[in-house]
């Protein structure tokens, strides 16, 4: 059914109709500049890669040859100019290491120290049994054994082999924070905790513990949400699976945790840290227990302890007890008799007070 249509109208009526419709609809909504920049970057990368195809080379051989010559001259000029310039910008800080970790080439192959500042182009090799913790902007990245990582800038790294775990702290929205490039694709960090594993020539595995990661591979953009793992072994070999936040694949992370200071902080904050590090859900048996944990102020240090060792040591100095027998949960309750057990780890350096 059609009412008397626009085509039946005379010129002035028709123009008035068009004008009225356009005005009623108003300005077309535009995407935000953040979204535009994000999409543009990805599309432009693809476009530039596309324009490097041999077909294009044949079509513009003369032009490209001239451009290449100019580029070589330009690079030579830049190289000469850079010889007298300041060193490249610092893009990361080495927060911690365990075992043999080598940084190439800026430290002349020496073993590195905590606190070293790393520049663009640096490669970090954790060798057979090392591990490293980096600060890349606001993201903390942990590297497992047998990992080779190249730093591009604070937002870009290239994982050539091994395991990388990225954590940006508490949920902070969807801004892009770290882009990990691998031979199988690119991972954009849009959440807080995720892990990338690359076995060169075989597969890439991305799993998300909290938040979200966006994986670009073979022209596809795939969202990986918390509780999911994505395996990419080739253009047509992409599989997705469920991943629990506390299962064994995350275990290596707990063996190499960033320093966490408990001194002067409430017990509840420490418990939240433990839950986050181990992928567990923090549960108090009663609201009063939570309130008591928020009032209890800790002192001392858990330096050098694993999360579980720290939990045992800290709670031994308090009136609280924990239960981690249920997978994925950390249950906190009060001791019935109010007694305090001193644990076996660093108890002498720890104390807790309840101001109330």
């Amino acid at each position, binding site marked *: *059914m*059609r*009412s008397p*249509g*626009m*085509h039946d109208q005379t010129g002035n009526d*028709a*123009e008035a*109709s*068009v*004008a*009225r*419709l*356009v*005005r*009623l*609809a*108003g*300005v*077309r*909504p*535009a*995407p*935000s500049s953040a*979204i*535009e920049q*994000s*999409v*543009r970057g*990805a*599309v*432009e990368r*693809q*476009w*530039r890669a*596309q*324009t490097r195809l041999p*077909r*294009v080379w044949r*079509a*513009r051989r003369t032009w490209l040859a001239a451009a290449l010559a100019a580029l070589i001259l330009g690079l030579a000029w830049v190289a000469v100019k850079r010889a007298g310039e300041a060193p490249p910008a610092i893009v990361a800080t080495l927060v911690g290491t365990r075992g043999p970790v080598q940084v190439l080439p800026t430290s002349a192959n020496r073993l590195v120290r905590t606190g070293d500042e790393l520049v663009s182009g640096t490669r970090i090799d954790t060798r057979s049994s090392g591990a490293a913790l980096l600060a890349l902007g606001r993201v903390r990245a942990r590297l497992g054994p047998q990992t080779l990582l190249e730093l591009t800038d604070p937002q870009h790294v290239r994982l050539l082999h091994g395991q990388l775990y990225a954590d940006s702290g508490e949920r902070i929205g*969807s801004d892009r924070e770290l882009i990990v490039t691998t031979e199988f694709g690119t991972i954009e960090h*849009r959440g807080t905790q995720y892990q990338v594993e690359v076995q060169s020539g075989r597969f890439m595995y991305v799993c998300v513990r909290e938040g979200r990661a*966006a994986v*670009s591979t073979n*022209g*596809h*953009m*795939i*969202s990986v*949400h918390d509780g*999911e793992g994505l395996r990419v072994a080739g253009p047509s070999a992409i599989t*997705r699976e469920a991943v629990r936040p506390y299962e064994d694949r995350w275990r290596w992370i707990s063996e190499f945790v960033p320093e966490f200071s408990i001194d002067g902080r409430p017990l509840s904050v420490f418990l939240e840290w433990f839950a986050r590090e181990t992928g567990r859900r923090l549960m108090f048996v009663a609201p009063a227990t939570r309130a008591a944990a928020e009032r209890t102020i800790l002192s001392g240090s858990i330096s050098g302890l694993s999360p579980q060792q720290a939990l045992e040591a800290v709670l031994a100095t308090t009136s609280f007890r924990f239960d981690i027998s249920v997978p994925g949960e950390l249950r906190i309750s009060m001791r019935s008799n109010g007694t305090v057990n001193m644990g076996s780890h660093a108890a002498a350096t720890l104390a807790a007070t309840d101001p109330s």
Partner: protein
Amino acid sequence: MHEEDRQLAQRLLLGDEAAFRAFFADYFPRLFRFVLRRVDQDQEVARDAVQSALTRAVAKLHQYRGEASLFTWCCQIARHELADLHARTARERAALGSLVMREDEPEVRASLESIPVDSEAEPDAVRQREELAAIVHAALDYLPHRYARVLELKYLEDLPVEAIAERLGVTAIAVQSLLARARLAFRDACSALGESLESTDWRRPDTLAGGTR
């Protein structure tokens, strides 16, 4: 044959920087709105889908022959991306919801006819106006960029023909000609969008919330 679009594709394939800037500036916002309507206004999902669609479009550009407009061709790729997205996870399926099922028909007319505007069943004037706006915006997005631009300059920015001519770098006569063609194309597009538009008494400003300028 869409010769102008085919030439743009050729320039992109040859690595023409200006062509890429023009392509992205023109196609990204239109494609974003196209996708946004199909993902229940979820900006994050829309971003991923558009990024994936445009990346794939660029990768497959050598296959574009100009049989359809470049925008329609990009929309078709975006539809495939949305279908993939829809199939991949139950969570995303829920987020995409019925809009994907309702709107993702192969033909533009069929897709936009599925937006229901029935003044008796849906007396809410605000909602009616939003639906009308969605249809008009979709029509503008499907028009060639210069058509949509000249209509917006004329009727949204209320610029006289001379000012539009200056803005576009053409003569006033050329603007009048362009406006005439743009109005025709717009009316054709709106007609193609289905009866939903015509069943709305859009000629009476008092029937729509907010009135007119």
